[in-house]
């Protein structure tokens, strides 16, 4: 039971908030896909013959390269790994790439889930964050996807400076009309090495006010809850049964193999990450070398991962898992901290699990930091 992530590091434009490893230079697409296939073959035993339950094409913008490449990669995976029959295969797509042709080809190659990066339906804001689509394209693409795919997800970003609670409300209402089975709503994060980070430093933009952000987050939660979405992770909402299997794998600490520049992998003991550089990635793989760095997880690191990830999900931090897998009893060892957090109404305990309360749900990092060992 494990997943494969494929990183396709190309985009048409770089969004002002984005710090993913991508390039605008498309000359290397063919060579990169070749290298990705080499890596797949070289690492065919990484998952120890476990069957593959999910494949995820992420980016970057995997929707902008020819669907044939996607097909080739899927074929290569099937040739080298044992693939589960009801596998989930997701592709991240940008609205301006959603053509009927693409949708059908992807389907033919096995894609059965689309994650669409809408971000906002406000044209001014789309322009402000440097997206290459507008509202009209976004709506049209959602419609088309919903006609051909049962399982898809819409990415939204809230807390963009200049957006307002009521505008966001209209966006969500409009999107819900298409009944997407999954919505990811991310608070805008201003990461280093992005245009927004520079603008912030030079006082060209201001961080959105915290109260406004909290208002927007609560709004999202309330509307989606009413529409019977389940918030199974802090930024992830879905209709019953439509959790992203792939992402849930990350949060349940299942093994995954990350292929492509900057992709991360996890085999249960080690976490590793590939070099974030297309050319060096390609030339290493041409020599059949995997250009990655790895880190062995100590017991303490594993405990901390479980705490930090667990508190973000509806499944919580599972003390039973900590005890059986790591011989660590968090309820006993951290009684004082836990009592204090309960007293502050940030967490509660449900049988063996520690979960965040509504108040705690916007202070997850604060809670995690307190609970780390």
């Amino acid at each position, binding site marked *: 039971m494990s997943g494969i992530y494929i990183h396709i590091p190309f985009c048409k434009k770089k969004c002002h908030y984005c710090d993913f490893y991508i390039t605008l230079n498309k000359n290397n697409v063919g060579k990169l896909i070749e290298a990705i296939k080499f890596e797949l073959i070289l690492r065919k035993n990484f998952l120890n013959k476990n069957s593959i339950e999910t494949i995820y094409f992420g980016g970057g913008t995997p929707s902008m390269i020819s669907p044939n490449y996607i097909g080739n990669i899927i074929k290569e995976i099937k040739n080298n790994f044992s693939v589960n029959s009801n596998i989930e295969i997701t592709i991240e797509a940008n609205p301006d790439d959603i053509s009927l042709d693409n949708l059908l080809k992807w389907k033919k190659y096995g894609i059965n889930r689309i994650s669409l990066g809408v971000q906002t339906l406000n044209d001014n804001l789309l322009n402000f964050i440097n997206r290459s689509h507008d509202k009209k394209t976004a709506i049209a693409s959602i419609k088309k996807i919903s006609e051909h795919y049962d399982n898809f997800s819409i990415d939204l970003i809230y807390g963009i400076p200049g957006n307002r609670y009521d505008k966001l409300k209209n966006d969500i209402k409009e999107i819900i009309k298409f009944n997407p089975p999954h919505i990811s709503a991310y608070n805008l*994060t201003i990461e280093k090495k992005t245009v927004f980070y520079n603008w912030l430093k030079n006082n060209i933009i201001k961080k959105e006010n915290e109260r406004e952000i909290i208002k927007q987050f609560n709004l999202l939660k309330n509307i989606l809850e009413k529409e019977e979405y389940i918030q199974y992770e802090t930024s992830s909402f879905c209709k019953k049964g439509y959790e992203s299997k792939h992402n849930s794998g990350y949060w349940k600490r299942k093994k995954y193999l990350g292929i492509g520049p900057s992709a991360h992998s996890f085999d249960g003991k080690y976490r590793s990450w590939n070099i974030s550089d297309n050319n060096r990635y390609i030339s290493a793989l041409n020599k059949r070398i995997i250009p990655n760095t790895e880190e062995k997880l100590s017991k303490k690191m594993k405990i901390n991962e479980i705490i930090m990830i667990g508190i973000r999900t509806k499944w919580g931090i599972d003390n039973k898992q900590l005890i059986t897998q790591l011989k660590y009893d968090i309820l006993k060892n951290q009684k004082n901290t836990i009592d204090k957090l309960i007293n502050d109404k940030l967490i509660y305990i449900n049988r063996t699990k520690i979960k965040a309360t509504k108040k705690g749900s*916007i202070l*997850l*990092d604060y809670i995690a*930091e307190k609970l780390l060992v």
Partner: protein
Amino acid sequence: MKNIRNFCIIAHIDHGKSTLADRLLEYTNTVDKRDMKDQLLDDMDLEKERGITIKSHAVQLNYKFNNEEYILNLIDTPGHVDFSYEVSRSIASCEGALLVIDASQGIQAQTISNLYLALEQGLEIIPVLNKIDLPGSMIEEVSDQIIDLLDCDPSEILHVSAKDGIGIDKIMDRIIKKIPEPKGDAKDNLQAMVFDSVFNSFRGVEVIFRIFNGTIKKGDTVKFVNTKKIYNVDEIGILKIKKEPKDFLEAGNVGYLISGIKEAKEIKVGDTITHKDSPTQNEVKGFEDVKPMVFAGIYPVENSDYEDLRASLEKLQLNDASLVWQPETSVALGFGFRCGFLGMLHMEIIQERLEREFDMTVITTVPSVEFKCFLTDGTTIEIFAPSDMPPVTNISYIEEPIIKAQIITKSEYIGNIIKLCLDKRGKIKNQVYLSKSRVELLFDLPLSEIVFDFYDKLKSTSRGYASFDYELSGYVKSKLVKLDILLNGEKVDALSAIVHKEKAFEWGKKLCQKLKELLPRQMFEIAIQASIGNKIIARETVRALRKNVTAKCYGGDITRKRKLLEKQKKGKKRMRQVGNVEIPQEAFLAVLKIEE
């Protein structure tokens, strides 16, 4: 005695003393090649890691020259100004000194101050121009500086690379030929001087000494003149890499003595050792009680660790006699200790040693110097901490310690440095050109200003081209006030500082701003106020923490996010809860960084 040579290696910080000692150990086969390590004599972990010498280290070398056996007693000394008293005692135990000068740096402040110490004792100086292998070495220029300083002949300067082992043979030759043999009479009454002590958990304190006159034998009853303590000599010997016991040691030599002494503080560096029954009439001159210069509170992070902290300090004091302390209580921090240090580096070292060797997590409060407070009733009290300060109405006046500071720099930085020293309430006393481009500046400065971020500023304002040395010169009257900090209306005594009246207002403002940066946001708002007496002079607010969530945590985010959270958590490990506010260690030292 004819074949004994006693010498020390002195220099400015980092000019290569310990590395040169390595080469001498190697050259004389004192250490096996395979046991050789860089800076071998720096045997404390902290010394190794930081690459600095904290204590003097003495070692004996044997050397055959012109078919004669020689005994060479070498003392490697620390370069940092905090430990200059120790250097002066090492110097007093020798007849010669290797004055090491880094060819890429030239003469620096401690080069000069240590040279003067050596000249005062009448030592034969052997100038060693080190690091000549460096591409940036300025052999001619620095040689000229040395010639000016020592008034010597160019041929007397030895060109050496301690790193590459160049010129070591010449040093050996010079040591034998130039450094005078020790004088003294082995039949005279015993007169020996303590210049170091080493704590050994199995054997107690090993006293390291130099014999000027007389003979000391195993089993003798000896007296330490200044402490007036009497001991039986259980063991004596010489300082090979491993100590080598002997039945007796005679005038001229250097050795160790063990007599069941349990605590280093019983031993005073500089003290004279003599026989109880036939004491010398000449105690060694220049003995001083080492005086702490800087005082700060050390508190356990958890109140319950107080007794453990006491035990740890006691153990530290066993091998560091210059550390002094007494219990102190703080309203904010509870029970702790007011400790006296030789300087800021010494304070840092003690804190680090507590952490590494004793696993104690501690909070150190704002360092202070010793003020003298003259009260209206005619009495005088010493103030080591802001909390010692009596109510203003009881104070007639206050005096603060003043230092003579010597700064050596390049001429282009004179302006910046003078400005810095004036900002620090200094008075310029003299300005001497050592060469066309190098200047020595002399200032009178309040010691308290040196404690607060002086070194960092000196470094940045001179781009690292300034070296600094100082000595205490006396006390002067000064207008000082106590600046208090309140968090959510409650005075946090551990954040108080004594500052000059004219600077107090600005300090208050900056301190509040700095604290605002340093106090982590908590679940409620924190009001920070600065006050003098009952008057609030500045205010800042740390807003309550409302939202703290990372948006995304996918496969590629997990490691980065875990490391970030762990780092933040570690940063808060040294945190004290005062009332309901959590204060990190950095905040207690905020005054030191106030202008960053």
